[in-house]
């Protein structure tokens, strides 16, 4: 069977989420092609061709692709599916936006956020915010899948695939891109970061969040996350949200500061390798899953931790 992976990229390079999606695709079939659709995305296409295991790269150009417009991706991918048995997206905002649309156009039941490939028709995916796992078997001839990237290792370098140009149709007249505000940050991207520092409602204000969580994150070279409670209270922007309704992360180190550990937050971070919790409430549920718990007020504990990290040469 032939599998198509729709790449996420910034026109210059391919995002790590795509390398992980390729690993999932290779568990389905050894015939894995990658679609790089963007604007001036030749470098990204070349980068995709260098990923181990990739058979061929399809490169399409169009402004609507750069903006991730689902209608445009549908228009490009659906005709390509005549020659593929499955299409995989990373389960990111962009992938989740486009994949179901393509599934419906193909009259296929999409399979969202797989975390394991059992065989070519059977997959494991989390439901109820990861509080249960379902193993499902599809009877659809073609498969449309999004991949929970934290569950797969990234495919490495070492490929030498060819790059083929594909022509995109006219963009949808019903959708107009008006603009984007992308937060510029020197910090790693939350979803793929090796270390994450998250703050909770205990911060009490956006200023406190900024003054406590961000310096600790920067000291650790970590991405910044937040609980839903902190986001709801306006202490942190929504795209910092870790949890059932936000981002699912699985870094090597997750530091939860002033987070009680609501089910919905735990769902988004419980697969982290090492979890540290700092909370003054010794009974907070977060301690039940933390590898290292420090029962202390973050107001004193975080500065002390910064000091100790400095001593340790960080």
């Amino acid at each position, binding site marked *: 069977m032939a599998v198509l992976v729709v790449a996420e990229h910034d026109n210059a390079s391919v995002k790590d989420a795509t390398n992980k999606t390729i690993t999932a695709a290779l568990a389905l079939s050894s015939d894995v092609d990658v679609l790089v659709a963007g604007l001036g995305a030749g470098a990204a296409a070349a980068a995709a061709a260098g990923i181990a295991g990739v058979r061929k790269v399809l490169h399409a150009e169009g402004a609507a692709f750069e903006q*991730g417009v*689902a*209608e445009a991706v*549908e228009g490009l991918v659906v005709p390509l599916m005549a020659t593929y048995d499955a299409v995989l997206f990373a389960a990111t*905002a*962009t992938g989740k*936006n486009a994949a*179901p*649309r393509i*599934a*419906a156009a193909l*009259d*296929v*039941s*999409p399979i*969202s*956020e797989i975390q394991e490939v059992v065989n070519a028709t059977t997959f494991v995916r*989390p*439901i*109820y*915010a990861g*509080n*249960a*796992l*379902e*193993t*499902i*078997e*599809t*009877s*659809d001839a073609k498969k449309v899948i999004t991949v929970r990237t934290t569950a797969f290792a990234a495919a490495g370098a070492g490929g030498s695939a060819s790059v083929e140009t594909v022509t995109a149709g006219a963009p949808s007249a*019903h*959708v*107009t*891109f*008006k*603009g*984007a505000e*992308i*937060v510029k940050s020197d910090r790693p*991207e939350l979803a793929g970061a090796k270390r994450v520092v998250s703050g909770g409602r205990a911060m009490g204000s956006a200023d406190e969040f900024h003054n406590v969580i961000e310096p600790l994150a920067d000291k650790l070279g970590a991405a910044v996350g937040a609980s839903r409670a902190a*986001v709801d209270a306006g202490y942190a922007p929504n*795209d910092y949200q870790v949890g*059932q*309704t936000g981002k699912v992360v699985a870094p090597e*180190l997750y530091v939860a500061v002033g987070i009680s550990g609501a*089910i*919905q937050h735990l769902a988004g971070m*419980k697969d982290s*390798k090492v979890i540290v919790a700092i909370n003054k409430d010794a009974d907070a549920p977060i*301690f039940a899953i*933390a590898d*290292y718990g*420090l*029962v202390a007020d973050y107001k004193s504990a975080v500065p002390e*931790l910064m000091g*100790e*990290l400095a*001593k*340790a040469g960080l």
Partner: protein
Amino acid sequence: MKVLVPVKRVIDYNVKVRVKPDQTGVDLANVKMSMNPFCEIAVEEAVRLKEKGAATEIVAVSIGPQQAQETIRTALAMGADRGILIQTDDDLEPLAVAKLLKAVVAEEAPELVLMGKQAIDGDNNATGQMMAALLGWPQATFASKVEIADGKATVTREIDGGLQTLEVALPAIVTADLRLNEPRYASLPNIMKAKKKPIDVKSTGDYGVDVAPRLKVLKVTEPPKRAGGIKVESAEQLVGKLKEAGVL
């Protein structure tokens, strides 16, 4: 402008989900059920559009068991005008739901479908996008701001790394993200009033669409449990432990 708001009855988001010992699913017996939180946000947004004069009628539609009437009543108490229940005891996949909702759209001819981005049971995040494809309508998913003017919806969307603004021509599908609004609590008089609002009860057979499942659930299991660790006494000890664990 008529607004259609699909709503789903799900396990209340504060309930601890338990997997059945026979691995056939999660235990729904004697568990508190509520409107899916993202659906609530969609209802609230529709009601706000009506209060602003941008919407004239709000129709809440649910596909589910007889008790899903309660979910529709919740929407009516928040300010929806009438309801449609497509009654079924089957657990339908998003593809089937999208096909049924497409048929409802054909009958009701709304200019806007406002719905939650995902239900917190199946966590598929698919139905809105699928409906849009089946209808050939534009979509604006994960909305944190919606403005309606001149036959267009200007929608600010939550994307990775920030926000994006799209202008979609109506009719369109908009799916609600968390920050779109904070849903109201229905007042007692509005709850009483909602009891008198009409709910049309239909069956899946009324729409003549294929709702057969494509996916077979082989088993539902509990995720591996994470063992709790230790408590440390100080930041110094914590840093020592993290070094030992090789994560610093």
